[in-house]
């Protein structure tokens, strides 16, 4: 069934996006898992693990900042690239297309807020 696999396949450990790079697209995971890593002061912290159906790199669609994290394949992973220009043109015609991206970002803010509020008690 591999003939019907859409997107591009990355091998275990391959970097899909790199922190500090310019971003012109976001990605949707078609199969497999990726880890989101942040480098700071020479230390690498795993921020999240994303799986099938999840987005990553979506900040590049709405901002012109550099990628804030590195995303690396955990095992074989297949991802579909969504072009910024194509997506923004569709959002311009149908703003509700952004619902799911906004929902995902909202969910991630909630996750982060919970992590931050848990932090002092964990210490």
């Amino acid at each position, binding site marked *: *069934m591999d003939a*019907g696999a*859409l997107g591009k396949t990355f091998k275990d450990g391959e970097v899909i996006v790199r922190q500090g790079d310019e971003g012109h697209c976001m990605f949707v995971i078609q199969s497999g898992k990726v880890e989101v890593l942040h480098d700071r002061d020479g230390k690498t912290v795993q921020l999240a693990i994303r799986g099938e159906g999840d987005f990553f790199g979506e900040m590049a669609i709405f901002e012109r900042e550099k990628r804030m994290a590195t995303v690396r394949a955990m095992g074989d992973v297949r991802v*579909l690239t969504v072009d910024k220009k194509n*997506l923004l043109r*569709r959002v311009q015609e149908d703003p*509700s*297309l952004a619902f*799911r991206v906004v929902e995902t970002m909202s969910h991630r803010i909630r996750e982060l807020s919970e992590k931050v509020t848990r932090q002092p008690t964990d210490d």
Partner: protein
Amino acid sequence: MSTSSPTDVLEKSFAQRPSSSSPRLALESGSRVAVLGGGPAGSFFSYFLLESADRVGLDLHLDIYERRVFSTIGPAGCNMCGGIISESLVQTLATEGINLPTSVVERGIDSYVLHMDVGDVRIDTPLQEKRIASIHRGAGPKGMKERKWESFDAHLQQLALDKGARLIQARVEDISLPDGRPHLKTKDGQGESYDLLAVAVGVNTGTLKIFENLSIDYQSPRTTGTYISEFFLGEEVVEKHLGTSMHVFLLNIPRLEFAALIPKGDYVSLCLLGRDIDQPLVQAFINSPEVKRCLPPGWTLPQTFCHCSPKINLRCAPKPFADRIVFIGDSGASRLYKDGIGAAYRTAKAAANTAVFEGISSESFREHFLPVCKRIENDNRIGKLIFIVTREIQRRRFDRRGVLRMVSKEQRRKSGARHMSTVLWDTFTGSAPYRDIFLRTLHPGFLGVLLWEIVAGFWPFRKGNGMIE
């Protein structure tokens, strides 16, 4: 003291919002919606209507009327289509959370090969990524022995059913509007009334005649004929000879305007556009050396094979809506020659959002749904112009040679502008609006280089690097 929940308030605000025309027709919790036709347009509409309704706290009842079972092999389960999901639609659906699984996509397409009498050239997607999907609308062509892939239409229908839609497998025989509400009567004599009816029956059915006689000013879209056939080659042969490319032919064969071979699983689909396509024209195309190069040596047209001559839209329906009725997909508006499933998605979603957020009156659809149809119609006008130019290129050998030279050079370069490649890519794959494509052809870099390559084409041509003459 009010005991209303936030969703109750939201729901009431949608239902009771004042309107210039009175009384305002709107969906409320408990409203009944019928969708006539369970192909992509009907399934997309059901999916997005139920999703949006859920977001604003509306509890709707939705019935999809579709007599066909898409998991049936052969014409009985097929919706007659070339079966290409464009690059832009694959990305848009992924953003919507609708990812196409490998059990549905028969082949991921990452390139296309343009075949002309002056030579062939392969055009790769800049990202080297498979972002076009070839699918079968039904379970597979007539005569198929082993079912390896699922029907695309069945997959979408299941997504709608998972959202809460109910499938009624019956043929609708009559539609009337007693008290202004759509009333559907099935073959077995059962009748049901609804608050809203979405019509998604395509243009290859007599059902649209019923609506023309309903005094709602509906006129069916103007159509033209096309020809689609499916040939069994086996997965390995398809892989070896056609690979992951869509093969497009610009051949100077009388009456033939456009032709494509699309690799799919064990089969290859042949799609022809032109005037009065008949067996001799199909045979002339198959016998042309450009086509023979793509197929296994000695391959001949089988005695029997699955084929159909479906209609496709030339012009959109002038008024694809009325109070409580909206026409989506081919029954309303579709893109010229390409990306019919993309147009089904756009019109279905616009109709669903209008129904949930704006209302279900004729005025609501005119204000919020019609602009999407108009955009498609206006873009088709530019598309017609592009296809006139394509036809002229098809007729003139020196033009064809100029195009081939320009694309071949662009494909050899590692970087730099790829004017002709992107224009052809978007024209043949349906990935961009025709307006965008047309504007790109006005770029001085495009016109200047093309003119130069046409003139330079009179000198002897160098072979190699993707160019074959």
